[in-house]
């Protein structure tokens, strides 16, 4: 299977009458950190759902590694793509280890139990995100930030070449946010994995993403390397606000400033 990533070809999607994505054309190549940026309701989460094959495009097609997405089986796809959703509620008192081990589900036979390898991978994932000593705690008793890291560990345990973060850190403080993005960044650098992250904070996007995809009203407004696309003109076009983009020495990345408070 050729590792060519995603090819999104003239894809449209609508919720009832409401057009969510319109004639989208994009290529997402392996080994890069992608940021998906745009105003609320511009179709970012919908695009992730289409890429995850949770929803089917109304028109057009999406290829992953040279094959149409709908030709993949669910389990096969779960060995390729992992998702960290924004919100995570669980109503039953599973332990953290049990939830992280659910990431191994696509690899287990129906009546097979998790093997020592699966446990090792789960523990490695928990250690990577700094929750190594959480294994026996109940997920129902964790704080929001702790829970979100459990979900990330679960997605890491899935060991997929592609990791998608859907506003995975929007409820977290800056420390926890960096922790999650650092792990994602590390996976891209060391393993050549692909990360596609929906990000609202443009400074965060600038610091971590190799490529940015700006969406506006279901269309691609701009896409390309962060240095080229994160410009006042694009921000003005997509968000309708004036900004200044400059290099910041301390973060060694682009930084976006706005004139707050009118």
């Amino acid at each position, binding site marked *: 299977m050729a590792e060519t990533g995603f090819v999104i070809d003239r894809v449209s999607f609508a919720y009832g009458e409401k057009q969510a994505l319109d004639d989208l054309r994009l290529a997402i190549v392996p080994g890069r950190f992608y940021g998906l940026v745009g105003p609320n309701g511009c179709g970012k989460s919908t695009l992730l759902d289409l890429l*995850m094959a*949770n929803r089917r495009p109304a028109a057009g097609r999406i290829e992953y590694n040279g094959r149409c997405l709908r030709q993949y089986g669910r389990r*096969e796809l779960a060995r390729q793509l992992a998702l960290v959703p924004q919100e995570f509620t669980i109503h039953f008192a599973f*332990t953290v280890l049990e939830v992280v081990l659910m990431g191994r*589900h696509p690899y287990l036979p129906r009546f097979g139990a998790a093997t020592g390898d699966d446990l090792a991978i789960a523990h490695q994932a928990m250690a990577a995100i700094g929750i190594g000593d959480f294994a026996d705690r109940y997920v129902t008793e964790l704080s929001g930030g702790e829970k979100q890291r459990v979900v990330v560990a679960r997605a890491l345990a899935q060991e997929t070449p592609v990791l998608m973060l859907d506003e995975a850190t929007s409820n977290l403080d800056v420390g926890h946010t960096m922790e999650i993005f650092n792990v994602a960044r590390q996976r891209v650098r060391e393993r050549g994995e692909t990360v596609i992250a929906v990000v609202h904070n443009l400074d965060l996007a600038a610091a971590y993403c190799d490529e940015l995809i700006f969406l506006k009203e279901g269309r691609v407004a701009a896409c390309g390397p962060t240095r080229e696309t994160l410009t006042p003109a694009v921000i003005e076009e997509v968000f309708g606000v004036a900004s200044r983009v400059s290099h910041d020495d301390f973060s060694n990345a682009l930084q976006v400033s706005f004139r707050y408070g009118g």
Partner: protein
Amino acid sequence: MTLQSSHNASKRVASLALLLLLALIGLVVLSTGLGFIRISPGAVLRVIVERVVGDTGLAAGLDPLFSYVVMDVRLPRILTAAVVGAGLAVCGVLFQGILLNPLADPYTLGISSGAAFGASLALVANVTLFGVYSVPLFAFAGAIATLLVVLYLSSFDGQMSANTLILSGVIVGAILAAGISFMKYMADEQVAMIIYWLMGSFAAKSWTDVLLALLAVSAGLAVAVFYGRDLNIMSLGGRSSDSLGVETARVRKILLITGSLVAAVCVSVSGIIGFIGLIVPHLMRFLIGPDNRRLAVLSALAGGILLLCADTVTRAVLPVEVPIGVLTALIGGPFFCYIFRRRQRGIAHG
């Protein structure tokens, strides 16, 4: 937790399952001996083996009446109670898992109201088309028709959320309850029969009832165990479970239909018996955690034990036979309040 400790957990679950199984078998033998005519457990066993194996020497010296009482009167009732208890508990596990709600039970989706409506209709209209099975068949048809309406109401664009399911169930249940009230109002002498049926009973059960319930419940349990891990993962929510390779929509539909069919069979055999499906999965989850594969098996055993105990109390211990549905609600209700309070205070991990 290491592999060793997860191995130990499995061993603990296995020994608990064995313990419950032995308790259930012991209870069946013991309760068969209880009643107006007392029969010792030894005599009960000898009668059963004699009838099953055909070795007449075993029952020599026993009152020939014993054979009739054990095999034709008590055992069918006792086994039906145990199997229905198991079935309701398995349904509870399924519905709580599918609806992502620890407070759901086999009746949350209006299944019981549908069955009650069907049964009331058969009683009021005095349907005798299918002989003694007219009422159970109407109850079953009512339950299935209700399920179809609820599924239709809650499906949209091939999606079906836990919330819309519960809402649809509540709406349909309310309409049916009004219909039942109207029928009670219209009925003359049948009103007592309707009330009697609605409160549930295991009196006068036959081997046909036992077999029918056993077939439905064991099939339901098998499906629950087969999809147990998928159900575990579905508790993360549909978007997450899809991304983990579970065909959430399909599995949810299969389990929903399985649970409803089992519930419908249980209700049509025994009338409406509440709280078993709610409490037993709760208790078991408290003991062994929320893994649905283990939970389904252990809940089945515990549900059988609990309902059999309740039926034996009303049949052989209390001076007057209290309707079983009333008894389970009277015992189960306060007990549930207790669990609920404990949960609120964060002591239990239900």
